[in-house]
């Protein structure tokens, strides 16, 4: 009974917080002055057609660094929680072997998916997409191989090495921007190139590719930790 009352009280509190936002709300026709700057001069500043990418990588790049750190912390927590969690013999018996059709289909699909992931994060400054999406596509490719039983597990050394290298180079490029250009994570120390070419927008494609590699290897390691039978020595 007490629980139910507390439940209703918290729902009412949520409504009280949210209702003032609705009050006197019409259709918005203007964006905030900050967004106005990004929309009007972001394209000339960075020569990148996708303004969301400019915001993620450059203007709010420090936030992205923080988010990548949070992702790393969460991945570390998951690995820690699954470490030493071994399946019983009983559990392992129930695991079904994959079929040959699925295994060969998955090994056929893996390179296509991998290349598609790389395409997504190298074209992040030109079209919708970027490091996070591309990294997830690569992680799903690894997941496909894991689930279809083509490989027993993703190498922990490889994922941790890739992830650490990508993270360190991300910070190094940020410091390079501080040294050669206007500020931390400023991508303008590389030539800005021509409009909507793949080698344009300064270091934005490089930074987003590093984010993609980092996210992809991290999520692959997480999925590996969740799926693997726990038989590691």
């Amino acid at each position, binding site marked *: 009974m007490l629980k139910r009352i*507390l*439940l209703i009280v*918290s*729902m009412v509190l*949520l*409504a009280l917080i*949210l209702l003032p*936002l*609705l009050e006197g*709300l*019409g*259709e*918005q*026709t*203007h*964006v*905030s002055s*900050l*967004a*106005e700057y*990004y*929309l*009007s001069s*972001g*394209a*000339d500043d960075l020569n990148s*057609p*996708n*303004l*969301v990418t*400019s*915001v*993620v990588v450059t203007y*709010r790049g420090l*936030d*992205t660094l923080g*988010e990548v750190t*949070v*992702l790393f912390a*969460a*991945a570390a*927590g*998951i690995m820690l*929680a*699954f470490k030493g*969690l071994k399946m019983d013999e009983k559990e392992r018996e129930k695991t079904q072997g994959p079929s040959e059709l699925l295994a060969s289909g998955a090994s056929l699909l893996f390179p296509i998916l991998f290349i598609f992931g790389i395409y997504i994060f190298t074209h992040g400054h030109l*079209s*919708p997409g*970027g490091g*996070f999406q591309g990294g*997830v596509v690569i992680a799903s490719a690894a997941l496909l191989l894991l689930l279809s039983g083509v490989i027993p597990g993703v190498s922990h050394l490889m994922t941790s090495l890739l992830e650490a290298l990508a993270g360190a180079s991300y910070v190094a490029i940020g410091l390079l921007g501080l040294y050669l250009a206007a500020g931390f994570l400023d991508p303008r120390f590389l030539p800005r190139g021509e409009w*909507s070419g793949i080698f344009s927008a300064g270091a934005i494609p490089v930074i987003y590719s590093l984010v993609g590699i980092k*996210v992809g290897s991290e*999520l692959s390691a*997480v999925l590996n930790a*969740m799926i693997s039978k726990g038989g590691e020595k």
Partner: protein
Amino acid sequence: MTQLLYILAFVVMAIGLWGILSRRHLIRMIIGFSILDTGIHILLVAIGYRKGGTAPILDEALSKGEALMNAVDPVPSALVLTAIVIGLAVTALMLSFAVRMVQNNPTMNADEHKELKW
């Protein structure tokens, strides 16, 4: 459109919070978290929306000059983009804790996991 998105976001957030607080099954509570997450993402996208807005990606359909008048706010989009990825990691973290809890005490009911309570 903006009002509709706001109302939708509130409804989804309320459903998610209700799920977290009223359900006692561990997986259902985590599903409630992910629904609450989706509601917050819709709210942030709604804050960035403007009337008749298009995506802030410059191409033949949207020239540099028109962007100021027509494109939606790119900042909330960028925030939600990263928030979704963090949401996945946090959901996976919660699920891994759920697996550990069930291993210590094999029941799915959150009320029966007593040793974690004060």
